[in-house]
């Protein structure tokens, strides 16, 4: 309880709540950047290390260095008081020292055993002191080379005794073209004082409502400058900035069910920060939704037509389709590999196409959080058409190739401290057969009447859920709708309900999309999976699904607090200040 922001967890959960991160800005800045001491130190050590280690036993065939210079400010308030206000700067070094060959190296996955794990990084000096940076890089290179050498011995031993699977025959690492792009450093300038006042004021507004147990407002500003060199000749320096305001409120229904409402604002330029009026309106909306949900009836398990608004549909596609289009899952024998053999086949209705395009910084004037110029393996971001008129075309790729997809398409991504794998960036769903909102609603009602149902469900907001992609679990997915309405066939006003999860199997539900809206909506958030939490966007039109299955959500058994809130206690008025 209390200040916990990251209460939603589960593997492959898209969480819009996690702390700040970055997006956008200046990859190839027009102004020539001054020589970076960080890059100079990295290049000097790279050359020296490769000269020695490429002829060692075992030989290193690829070395890369990444330094992430992270400048971060966070101001957070809760229940009308300041919770924290701080800023920090840190540099994080990651070293990859691969031994063996592109075909078979130390990272080769052995059966279903987890790979031997060495934490892939360390903090390094903030001062631009080349000899010290070189010393730190040298030390980490030695550590990683030793770990890789050990790992390769295990790989080679087990290679002799294990059966090869078809996808296991794909190389461990792809060869990529080198890229050079040295942009200017980016920074955020933050005056925290006004934000301290704002987060106090915003959360005090939440506290006006007696049903609010806890509220949090968090402002974050991030400037991330990334430097990367590798022995294939890539040399990159680029930066991205991102500002974010998050609002979170928690209440409890009388039966003990926890109710959370959340919203966020993202911007790139300080002048685009939301004004007080905008934030205040958002706060009132969250309070109203939370209060309505507190009192809402619990919906019974249901199977029937459902209408998802654009934002909800975006999350739905991200969870149900997007994660299964991530290349590394096709390779891993412990994965379900839903789509592995389906390239060239129809998996969606013909009117739907999907691409993942991290090269777009905005969509319809709104920023996209999944934008980046280069991925975390130094490969330029690529617009990848995943589904063309219902037909699966390819997968999202990092530098871990598949037999039929030998190269990265710039989707190797990670949170600092994790090893990159193929991840989504901006997943954009479009439709060639759209209708207006009114037409969609009418179509829903028509379906209800056809199926003799008295109501259908309208999903307005989805929290993200967890997707089982592993082979050991059923190929099912579960996403948690946060705001759900019953839409009645007889034309009564919609009724807000609570306590349901969407369940089902992905292939089936994707083929049951019968209509789409004419306006695409954006979901910006953070997605947590194997390589940590990365910023993503999903864009989709509203979708009407002819049949969707809903189950009861697990609920907290905690009763609501015994005593009334102290600020709203009728028996204790005298104590108030």
């Amino acid at each position, binding site marked *: *309880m*209390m*200040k*916990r922001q990251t209460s939603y967890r589960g593997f492959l959960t898209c969480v819009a709540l996690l702390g700040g991160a970055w997006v956008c800005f200046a990859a190839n800045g027009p102004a020539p950047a001054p020589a970076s001491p960080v890059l100079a130190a990295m290049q*000097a*050590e790279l050359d*020296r*290390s490769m000269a*020695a*280690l490429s002829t*060692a036993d075992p030989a290193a065939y690829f070395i890369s260095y990444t330094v992430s210079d992270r400048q971060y400010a966070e101001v957070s*308030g*809760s*229940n*009308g*008081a*300041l*919770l*924290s*206000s*701080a800023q*920090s*700067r*840190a540099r994080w070094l990651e070293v990859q020292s691969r031994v063996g060959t592109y075909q078979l190296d130390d990272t080769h996955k052995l059966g279903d055993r987890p790979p031997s794990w060495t*934490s892939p990084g*360390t*903090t*390094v*000096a*903030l*001062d631009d*002191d080349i*000899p*010290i*940076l*070189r*010393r*730190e890089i*040298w*030390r980490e*290179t*030695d550590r990683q*080379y*030793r770990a890789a050498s050990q790992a390769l011995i295990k790989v080679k031993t087990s290679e002799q005794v294990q059966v090869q699977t078809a996808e296991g025959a794909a190389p461990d690492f792809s060869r990529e073209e080198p890229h050079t792009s040295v942009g200017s450093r980016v920074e955020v300038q933050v005056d925290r004082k006004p934000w301290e006042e704002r987060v*106090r004021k915003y959360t005090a507004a939440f*506290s006006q409502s007696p049903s609010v*147990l806890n509220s949090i407002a968090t402002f974050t500003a991030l400037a991330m400058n990334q430097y990367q060199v590798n022995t294939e000749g890539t040399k990159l320096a680029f930066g991205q900035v991102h500002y974010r305001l998050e609002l979170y409120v928690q209440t409890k229904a009388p039966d003990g069910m926890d109710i959370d409402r959340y919203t966020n604002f993202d911007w790139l330029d300080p002048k685009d920060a939301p004004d007080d009026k905008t934030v205040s309106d958002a706060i009132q909306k969250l309070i109203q939704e939370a209060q309505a949900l507190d009192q809402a009836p619990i919906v019974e398990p249901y199977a029937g037509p459902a209408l998802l608004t654009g934002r909800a549909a975006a999350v739905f596609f991200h969870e149900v389709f997007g994660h299964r289009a991530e290349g590394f899952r096709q390779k891993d024998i412990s994965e379900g590999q839903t789509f592995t053999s389906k390239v060239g086949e129809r998996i969606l209705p013909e009117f739907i196409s999907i691409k993942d395009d991290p090269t777009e910084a905005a969509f319809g004037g709104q920023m996209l959080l999944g934008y980046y110029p280069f991925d975390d393996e130094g490969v330029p971001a690529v617009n990848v058409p995943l589904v063309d008129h219902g037909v699966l075309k390819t997968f999202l790729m990092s530098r871990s190739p598949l037999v039929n997809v030998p190269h990265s398409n710039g989707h190797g991504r990670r949170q600092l401290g994790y090893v990159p794998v193929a991840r989504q960036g901006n997943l954009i769903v479009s439709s060639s057969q759209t209708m207006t909102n009114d037409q969609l609603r009418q179509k829903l009602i028509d379906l209800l009447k056809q199926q003799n149902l008295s109501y259908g469900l309208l999903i307005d907001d989805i929290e993200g859920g967890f997707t089982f992609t592993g082979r050991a679990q059923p190929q099912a997915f579960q996403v948690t709708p946060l705001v759900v309405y019953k839409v009645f066939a007889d034309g009564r006003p919609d009724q807000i309900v609570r306590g349901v999860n969407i369940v089902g199997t992905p292939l089936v539900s994707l083929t049951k999309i019968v209509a789409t809206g004419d306006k695409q909506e954006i979901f910006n958030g953070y997605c947590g999976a194997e390589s940590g939490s990365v910023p993503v966007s999903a864009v989709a039109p509203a979708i009407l699904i002819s049949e969707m299955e809903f189950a009861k959500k697990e609920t907290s058994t*905690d*009763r609501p*607090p*015994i*005593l009334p*809130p*102290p*600020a709203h*206690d009728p*028996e*204790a008025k005298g*104590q108030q*200040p």
Partner: protein
Amino acid sequence: MRILATLALLAAFTMPVAAAQAPVPAGDNDQTLRAMHDEMERARTRLSLAGVDKPFYIEYRLLDLDLRSVTASFGALDSSSVSRTRFMSVDVRVGDYHLDSSNFISEDGFQGFLGSTGEVGIDRDYNSLRQDLWLATDQAYKAAVTQMSLKQAFLRSLTKPPEIDDFSQAQPLVKVDPRIEPDWTSRNWDDEARTASAVLKNFPQLYGTRVNYYLVYATSYRMTSEGTTIRESRHLAGVEAALDTEADDGMELHNFYAAYAPLPAGLPDAATVANALTKAGGDLMALRASPLVPDYTGPVLFEAPAAASTLAQVLEPSLSGARPPLSMTQDFDAFIERFGGRSEWTGRVGTRVFPASVSVVDDPTLQEFQGQPLLGGYGVDDEGVKSGRVSIVENGILKDLLMSRRPGPDFSYSNGHARSALLSDPHPLSSNLFFQSTDALKPADLRKRFLDACRADGHEWCLEVKRMDDPALSSVRQEDFSDFVGELGGEIASGARMPLFVSRVYVEDGREEPVRGGVLEGLTLRSLRNILAIGDDSVVYTYMQNPAEGLAGTALGAFGSVQGGIPSTVIAPSLVLDDVEIRGFHGEPRRLPLVQAPPLK
């Protein structure tokens, strides 16, 4: 709420300032105690669930931390930060002093511990704190009710339930100190860290270094339904440095330096730290060049700093008189056992534990020893009990034990030794621990006694331990300490001790020769009965006890850092122990780096 993981990493504190038994002074708009009081009253009078006990004890703790931390390596800054945070912890108990909902580990672990702990607003305001306390109290009460029913069910399954009370009565205390505002500006900490660490560039054979300045001001609040009201200001400053390298045969070697002061202004200046680091670097280089220690059994001379550190590891687990919590699972017992947390002294009060000349005293009320500050002191312990001197061993006979408000088989009441860092569970821990003898020898006589013993045993040379290692401080990377606990933690329970600097002393002419790579084996309380001689050269050894659950109060608890450790001292002289076993290095040497280290300048 960033919960306990964060709590355990942060802060520490020392030395309460002079007590001022007054309400919050005029002009001080800190609303913390008022918010605590009002919510406590509401909970005390109105919190109840139908059909179950009302709370009999409610406790609010709150910690307000201002931290300044700077880390540098070889003259370059790695990080520099300032932060301010507040954490609360609420304890609600049902039952009574004899049998309550505490002291019990169910299969679900510590119930209600997380739910009632959390980060709260930093404005020292009234409304937001009441809201947080309200919810935390509610959670803690519900958890206590659940815990109590599990505990009662467990007790019914035992043939003989424990007769010892769960909780002892203590005199309520009211003590409201003035708040102290932190001051970071008196010195330029970034520059000092750079300057001090830069001297290590003179040792190109060093692999890595870390110099960390850590300054903390803490205001701690405590309120109980028994009537205790406390606001105390505590502060602590430390500089800790780690340096490491490899010998030519691949053996990993390290060294550390630490200095502590109650206030930032008391820390040594950059030039002093630089000199100390130059010495630390030089010592490590000498160690690097020294030969390996062979396996050895015989007399060992522990110089005073090494003796003090060894005593901290060996004595601490047996000083506590509190009984361990009742546990439904074997895991907890196994955990305590593994890290050497089992007391060998409970139940042995009145028996001889040391030679008749030896006394052991723990005294949190002292501020200094022979002009040197004692950082382990405090006025009120972490359960709100006034601190007091405890004479543990007199003339070799065990007389008393350190007590919190958790009674044990030998003693029922607290003597003010409950200690914790942050808001962790308080344990009975030492503060300023004196190990003394009425039969102490001058250093020259002690050395003669040592060499005589060697000669009598027929040794050509014997070993002398000059300093003990503290892996929490000497690890350049924080993960290395976790690795140490994982790999060697278990051996600690059976008495493995890590020396840092060891020399061979030749019987013939007394000359010394540094050696490297040994581990002391089987060095337990029992070994201390074989004390051959005790010096009169007591030193103050200042260290930070590790408050981590499972480590606090064990032999590993002697390894902590200023980031979250509990300031403590051992005042001890040089010792000669007989029949000590040292195991030399038997592992496979590591391959040296294939790439030469780049130049540091």
